[in-house]
């Protein structure tokens, strides 16, 4: 009886059915993520799918042939869980983008390591039992996985500000990248052609791809990091699909490809919102420097426009209290200062005075699409007060005060009227159309894109310098004194 049950559980068709179920759950889960109401359940559905795929794989005949294997698997899973849970639990909402980068990186790392292990497994035999198909797929997985791992780590370092956000460039960068690419692909071809020193060449592939991942991401400015993370996310998905082809695993192929497709769409969406093209962002890594150089020129030109006027929290509070409509424009500065709760309190204080408060969310405000929404939702800002760019832009004409909290490039009028500006053509929040503008900022330094903002020199703009959270709290305090 138990033999019957075991053989049923290990039946190829049963396992495949479980995989199909898992894939269906992934798709349903992703579809659930499409709406704020179904999103939580969608994520859970996808997680259940993952659990089913995991169990199905362990059931498969020969996967756990002995106790030793079981122990190794348990060690890996337990260590991974012990690292993953606290990392996900304790990360601050503001640090979310770099956490996603890190999780993406370890996924890519897993792909590369598995490809490496596959090569070790097939070296000694060197026989015809390994299909060319699997070998080529594994080589692809090794290269892309390794690039993804190292690239993601650099992206993490930049967002975490361990590494400088400014583009880092080496002399002869292009040449170095080209050489690395040649070493990488050359080693892969040598392996595919059946060299005798496969062990050496696979390391060549992994190391060259890893260094290439570093080199490509290092010169990309911090502002473009979300696009890079999204692209690397798609890469990891595709490399997982390649692993699936190498190992003849249906679930890996489908899930990996879906991630690859969705990551590509998201990457493109983010790039479009910044009026950049994906190739030109990556070219920041390959070609280098054109955008940054142009940015410097633009800054010099705009800086000549005049001087900025600074204001005090008290004046700002008076201005806000007597407004009919205030539009808050949050940016990365709000995230860094963790000011979302203070902003919510200030908005409540204003609403008690009969001021209408809305939030203008630029698609690329912060470091990721939706970054501001996550933070403001954390502070219990009602969902319907968050306005997307196209909805809020017509409203600025009727707005008395636009309060810019740590946002810069997304409000830069140069994007509309200075063809020489590197961000010319990027859709912006047209805050300059409102009656007056208050900018909360740490200093006059330029934004992440490294471009000066003529808005700051506009006569109707007042600057309130200081930490965003402290400034907002001061304004709230002043409001209660009015």
């Amino acid at each position, binding site marked *: 009886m138990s033999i019957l049950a075991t053989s049923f559980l290990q039946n190829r068709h049963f396992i495949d059915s479980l995989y199909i179920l898992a894939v269906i759950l992934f798709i349903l889960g992703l579809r659930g993520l499409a709406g704020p109401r179904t*999103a939580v359940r969608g994520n859970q559905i996808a997680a259940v799918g993952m659990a089913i795929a995991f169990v199905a794989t362990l059931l498969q005949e020969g996967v756990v042939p002995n106790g030793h294997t079981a122990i190794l698997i348990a060690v*890996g899973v337990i260590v991974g869980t012990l690292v993953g849970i606290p990392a996900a639990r304790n990360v601050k909402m503001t640090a979310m983008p770099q956490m996603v980068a890190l999780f993406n990186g370890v996924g890519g790392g*897993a792909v590369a390591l598995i490809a490496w292990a596959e090569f070790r497994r097939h070296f000694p035999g060197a026989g015809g039992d390994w299909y060319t198909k699997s070998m080529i797929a594994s080589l692809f997985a090794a290269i892309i996985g390794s690039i993804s791992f190292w690239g993601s780590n650099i992206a993490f370092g930049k967002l975490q500000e361990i590494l400088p956000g400014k583009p880092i460039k080496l002399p002869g960068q292009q040449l170095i990248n080209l050489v690395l690419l040649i070493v990488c692909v050359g080693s892969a071809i040598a392996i595919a052609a059946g060299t005798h020193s496969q062990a050496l060449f696979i390391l060549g592939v992994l190391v060259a791809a890893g260094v290439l991942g570093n080199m490509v991401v290092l010169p990309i400015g911090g502002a473009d990091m979300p696009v890079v993370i999204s692209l690397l996310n798609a890469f990891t998905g595709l490399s997982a*699909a390649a692993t699936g082809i190498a190992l003849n695993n249906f679930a890996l192929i489908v*899930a990996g490809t879906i991630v690859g497709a969705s990551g590509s769409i998201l990457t493109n969406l983010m790039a479009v919102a910044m009026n950049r093209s994906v190739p030109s962002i990556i070219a920041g890594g390959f070609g280098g420097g054109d955008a940054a150089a142009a940015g410097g020129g633009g800054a010099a030109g705009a800086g000549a426009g005049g001087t900025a006027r600074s204001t005090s929290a008290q004046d700002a509070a008076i201005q806000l209290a007597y407004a009919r409509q205030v539009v808050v424009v949050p940016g990365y500065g709000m995230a860094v200062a963790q000011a979302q709760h203070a902003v919510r309190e200030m908005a409540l204080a204003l609403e008690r005075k009969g001021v209408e408060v809305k939030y203008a969310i630029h698609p690329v405000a912060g470091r990721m699409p939706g970054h501001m929404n996550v933070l403001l939702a*954390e502070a219990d800002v009602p969902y319907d007060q968050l306005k997307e760019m196209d909805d809020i832009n017509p409203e600025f004409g009727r707005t008395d005060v636009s309060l810019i909290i740590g946002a810069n490039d997304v409000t830069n009028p140069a994007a509309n009227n200075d063809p020489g500006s590197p961000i010319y053509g990027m859709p912006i929040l047209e805050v300059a159309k409102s009656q007056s503008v208050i900018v909360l900022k740490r200093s006059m330094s330029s934004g992440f894109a490294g471009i000066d903002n003529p808005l700051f020199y506009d006569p109707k703009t007042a600057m309130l310098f200081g930490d965003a959270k402290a400034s907002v709290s001061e304004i709230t305090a002043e409001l209660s004194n009015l």
Partner: protein
Amino acid sequence: MDLVTQIGVLVLAAFVGFEVISKVPNTLHTPLMSGTNAIHGIVLLGGLLVIGEAVGAHDVLGQIILVIAIAFGTINIVGGFLVTDRMLGMFKRKPEPKTDEGEGS
């Protein structure tokens, strides 16, 4: 599955991915990225599938590589889903007492 079938599956899956994802609103892009990120942790299965053979071949380095790969894949999955859940939890519409609390303070 032969290669042609696999490529067929891959192409169809790509279309499913495009279809499902293109409907996600802007505001949910960060959780979406995080959620898809968790799903590619499925590469963990690859590690499970091959570690048994590394044990069988007494390949110690291979076993170490794969244990690390399995740990990495697990971090990707567990961390990815949890972090997505945390993010999405903040989108939940909460009942209004929050405003009272604000007024009380």
